[in-house]
């Protein structure tokens, strides 16, 4: 029996290690390519074990290229501001929604809910943001459309309030003469820190990783976040590739970052996430499980 279990444990671990390798291999290839000497890359292509290493790509990004520093500043700014605003709006909507005694709360619940079921889609939203709000090439384009509030998160937080915060505490605070805003920020919020951390992390990740708003609304390279910068570089390369295939246009690859530089830029794009992830892993897991199973 023990012998049999040993065999099974070996099989199960081997399978998991295989999955782990499948997951990590592309990242390893990316990291190695970013550290490969440019001439070696041209000769041998992307390789897991390059013949010649070089730190050129990182030196280039950190010293010569201003776009990475700027990209980081934009990414960090939108992530910080966006996450804070999102959490505030979510908190402010979720708390009254969780108060059973509030008349008309079902109207607000439905108002929130309906946006999850039906959407106007990209076209009317795009026309509204660009023509009514003139959001193109402003920082608001990276902060506001679609990202400032997620109905899922509001419902998640509402559920947390109804199940984890006893009515007696709120009633007691009311008897003591606290205002509703006072109760929210001094009584409820401190008790809601675990859920706020979980939602904040998911929202922060969404802001850090967002490139679609950049695709729709940004052409000004001063406003490129890291992700938008990566997306734009790739688009330029695609266009050049297609021009080369059609035999039209002057193809000048020298204007675009070389392979190792692009790979180094990709490393920079995921580095902050990879640094914080091991410490906050359990919050990510919690966010996933409560978000999907208990909405």
């Amino acid at each position, binding site marked *: 029996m023990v012998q049999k279990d040993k065999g099974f444990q070996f099989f199960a671990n081997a399978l998991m290690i295989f999955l782990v390798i499948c*997951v990590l291999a592309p990242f390893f290839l990316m990291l190695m390519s970013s550290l490969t000497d440019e001439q070696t890359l041209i000769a041998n292509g992307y390789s897991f074990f390059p013949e010649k290493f070089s730190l050129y790509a990182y030196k280039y990004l950190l010293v010569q290229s201003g776009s990475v520093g700027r990209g980081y500043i934009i990414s960090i700014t939108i992530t910080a501001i966006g996450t804070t605003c999102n959490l505030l*709006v979510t908190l402010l909507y979720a708390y009254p929604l969780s108060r059973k005694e509030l008349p008309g709360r079902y109207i607000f619940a439905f108002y929130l809910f309906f946006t999850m079921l039906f959407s*106007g889609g*990209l*076209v009317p939203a795009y026309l509204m943001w660009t023509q009514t709000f003139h959001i193109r090439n402003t920082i608001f384009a990276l902060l506001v459309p*679609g990202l400032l509030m997620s109905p899922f998160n509001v419902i998640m937080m509402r559920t947390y309030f109804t199940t984890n915060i006893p009515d007696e505490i709120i009633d007691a605070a009311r008897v003591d003469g606290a205002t509703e805003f006072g109760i929210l920020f001094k009584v409820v919020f401190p008790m809601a820190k675990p859920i706020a951390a979980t939602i904040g992390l998911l929202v922060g990740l969404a802001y850090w990783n967002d490139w679609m708003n950049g695709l729709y609304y940004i052409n000004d390279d001063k406003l490129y976040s890291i992700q938008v910068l*990566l997306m734009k570089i790739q688009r330029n390369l695609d266009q050049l590739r297609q021009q080369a295939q059609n035999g039209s246009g002057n193809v000048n690859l020298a204007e675009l970052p070389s392979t190792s530089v692009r790979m180094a830029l*990709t490393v920079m794009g995921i580095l902050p996430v990879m640094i914080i992830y091991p410490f906050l892993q359990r919050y990510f897991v919690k966010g996933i499980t409560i978000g999907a199973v208990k909405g």
Partner: protein
Amino acid sequence: MKKKRKSLKHFWPMYVMFLPGVIYLFINSYIPMFGIQIAFRQYNAAKGVYGSPWCGMKNFEFLTKTKDAWIMIRNTVLYNITFIILGTILAVATAIILNEIRSKKAKQAYQTIILIPFLISMVIVSYLAFAFLSTSDGFINNTIVRWFGISAIDWYNSPKYWPFIIVIVNIWKGLGYNMILYYATICGIDSTLYEAAVVDGATRWQKVVHVTLPGLKSTIIILTLMALGGIFRSDFGLFYQVPLNSGPLINVTQTIDTYVYRGLIQNNNVGMSAAAGLYQSVVGFVLVVIANSIVRKIDSDSSLF
């Protein structure tokens, strides 16, 4: 009367709290819902959404008449069905195997690592895919293809490979997320059921079949139904960014979402784009409502509403 006035005074701060969210949702979600009427108008940039002349169902005609429309709908639905079937089987299998591993540390490490692709954007994924698939310097063409002594494959111009590439990338990115969902459900299964099975002399396989899988049944059904509700939606990044917007691949990578984007930005065909978007929203709405009402019958706690 006096009491009522007191309660209103008592409640108004809560209504104020709703205000930022109400305003944001009004702008971000409700105005575009009204703006969808552009699908029934002949769009004119100078006149705007509400001033363009009406044109009835003209923008929708292509949906039934052209091959483009058939291709994008077919792709969206077939890819989603593949993702649901393969994704669920693999996620359930890995969750069960993960649960059987005895070392707690190893379990934790596997879970942590397999979730990593969930944390990165599709732009990064497209760079990773390019490192493997690039025709001139990609890893596959430079290493694997050389081993087998065949000529280099022009991946970004060969549509026949892309259904597989898209599915692999999707599973690579989503497996950790789904595995964790099922694993969490397994952890929640009453441990006395397993103990009873051991007393009855059940083998490992019998425990999986008679305890774990029945315990996972409702989660599998619910997540599948929810995914079926979204069968008309697609991940824009996966179908646009990962294939690098390559023209020759369009027959196997065009989905409703990429069609809407291309129509709007590249071809300047606002009417047809909006029509496709509205079609997607209406069908999606109906599917989500149906899926949800079934979920509510199975397990009312898990339904959206």
